[in-house]
């Protein structure tokens, strides 16, 4: 009985497999018999041509969509391209924008529909006007013509029009918007708590604990301290974190009356560093000790800057070297030279590619976010403690979504993963 049932199933499967093949064969035979010689007959224009403002842009884009010409797949002399024409008057002169390749492998073909974004399509730029070309609010007209392999062209499609307009809200970035609101709510909540005097615990961080000891060592040896802010710009987050640590170090050096040398490689960084050190000396009650010459601009080029800083280490015999900020290929060159001079070295950067060098060549390294935490840890200011606590909650949210997203995706549901799909 079981064997018979198996045989029956096999028979059914064989029939199911055989029928489509026969059906396809029949269809091919029918189409071959119905095939008409279309050589020399112009193709039909594309169908359902539409123009609309490009969403989520600054107001200089129009999207044109159309469905393929009915003659795209005809047996003889099929359509190979669609020529798009633009004009600023409905019955005016149209100029060709571009010819878009026909067929399912065309980059502008998006499942049954062609889509072309007419944006910043270079109406001059080398010598004069472009400013994003399509004028905001102005109506543009489009029509399309199909072309066959032998060069036959269709009639133009009916003109369609659209006017580009700017958007205030990028719907593709909604998840950023929500994330910012949540994050700022957390930051404000914890700043408020810190201001009220609620104790916000911060775990000890090795590199930060060592800062005071390193300054003390320089004082005992009577040698200067070197503070390098890296090769980032004044507004890089790592550089900003570096200023906060510099303020703390400068205040201590003012108290202990030892010089802090801060050679910089960017004029704006130099200005901010000078202001930071000046303020720290004033806070320590020793504005008279402040010397602007200790915070010189060296050069903006990376390796000459390194050569100069290495020279300072050797000649000034700095007892303690701090590297806090954004670093690039110069990290190992600086840290190795510092190590050969016997200085205590403390580094911190958020550049993953440079952290290995600092870990290998310095005594203490603040890894990534530890650099940002250092400023809050050292100052204990509510304005810095609040964001640190909020960042921890943000990390907890990341962990939560990663766990939920991973579990659901492993089970074949991608709705959590899709929440974080963003468009630029």
């Amino acid at each position: 009985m079981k064997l018979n049932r198996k045989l029956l199933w096999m028979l059914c499967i064989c029939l199911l497999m055989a029928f489509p093949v026969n059906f396809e064969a029949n269809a091919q035979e029918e189409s071959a018999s119905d095939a008409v010689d279309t050589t020399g007959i112009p193709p039909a224009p594309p169908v359902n041509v539409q123009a609309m403002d490009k969403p989520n842009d600054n107001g200089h884009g129009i999207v044109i969509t159309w469905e393929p010409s009915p003659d795209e797949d005809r047996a003889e002399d099929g359509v190979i391209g669609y020529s798009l024409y633009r004009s600023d008057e409905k019955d005016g002169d149209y100029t060709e924008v571009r010819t878009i390749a026909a067929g399912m492998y065309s980059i502008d073909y998006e499942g049954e529909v062609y889509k072309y974004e007419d944006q910043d399509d270079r109406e001059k730029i080398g010598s004069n006007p472009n400013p994003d070309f399509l004028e905001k609010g102005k109506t543009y007209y489009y029509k399309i013509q199909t072309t066959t392999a032998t060069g036959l062209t269709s009639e133009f499609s009916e003109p369609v029009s659209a006017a580009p307009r700017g958007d205030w809200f990028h719907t593709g970035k909604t998840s950023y918007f929500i994330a910012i609101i949540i994050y700022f709510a957390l930051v404000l909540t914890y700043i408020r708590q810190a201001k009220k005097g609620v104790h916000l615990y911060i775990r000890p961080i090795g590199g930060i604990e060592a800062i005071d000891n390193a300054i003390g060592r320089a004082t005992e040896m009577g040698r200067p301290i070197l503070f390098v802010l890296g090769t980032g710009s004044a507004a890089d987050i790592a550089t900003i974190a570096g200023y906060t640590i510099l303020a703390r170090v400068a205040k201590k050096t003012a108290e202990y009356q030892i010089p802090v040398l801060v050679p910089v490689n960017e004029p704006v960084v130099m200005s901010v560093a000078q202001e930071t050190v000046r303020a720290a000396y004033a806070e320590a009650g020793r504005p008279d000790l402040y010397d602007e010459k200790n915070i010189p601009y060296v050069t903006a080029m990376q390796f000459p800057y390194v050569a100069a800083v290495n020279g300072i280490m050797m000649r000034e015999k700095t007892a303690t070297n701090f590297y806090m900020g954004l670093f690039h290929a110069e990290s190992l060159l600086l840290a190795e030279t510092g190590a050969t001079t016997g200085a205590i070295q403390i580094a911190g950067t958020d550049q993953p590619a440079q952290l290995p060098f600092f870990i290998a060549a310095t005594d203490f390294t603040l890894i990534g976010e530890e650099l940002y935490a250092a400023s809050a840890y050292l100052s204990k200011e509510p304005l810095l403690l609040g964001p640190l606590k909020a960042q921890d909650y943000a990390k907890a949210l990341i962990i939560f979504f990663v766990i939920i997203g991973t579990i659901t995706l492993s089970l074949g549901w991608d709705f959590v993963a899709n929440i974080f799909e963003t468009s630029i």
Partner: protein
Amino acid sequence: MNLSGDIWVWVGALLTLSIFSFLYKDNPFYKFAEHLFVGVSAAYWMCMGIWGTLVPNLFAKLHPPLMKTILPAVAGKEPDYWYFIPLILGIMFLMRLSPKGAWISRWALAFIVGTTAGLYLTRSLRSDFIGQIQYSIIPLVTYKDGAFNFVGTISNIIIFLGVFCGLIYFFFSKEHKGAFGVASRVGIYILMITFGAGFGYTVMARISLLVGRMQYLFADWLGVISR
């Protein structure tokens, strides 16, 4: 041995040797090369700042006819008076050269640092928050051509655990004790393994730079090897 007859190759080789002499100790040759290097680069960047930024991005925008002999492309352009804002900010910044007006430069500084940090906010949010979640959500079990993919599955599990434990390490407002401490320790081990791999990778790239310099000395200058 086929010594180069080009004077500039000799200059380059001697400066290279002067910089290398720092490996022995600080000396007058290194000092000379260092000062030359710093001086030339500082002057170069100053010229770049004037001709690459100030002239095309400020003067040519504010007064195109004045610049048309230097930049023919701006001929016939209308002045763009919005550029008075950066001009004013620049002048405010230069006020720090005056002992009495130095405080004015702080406004320009605050503007630069504040606006740039604000612009970085969304970028950081995209890469560090949304992007972190987006790229960390991966299926733990993977299949390749319909069959279970052992290597892919192990790889994804390591990524998942690495992200989880790495994030735990960067929690600052909670003591790292108990299970939290274990996860944090695993996190720092994973970070160190990553840094070790990164170290090796980058050292290889640096060795290629050294090879380039050696080729310059032994091939271009001394001519004892061929390129």
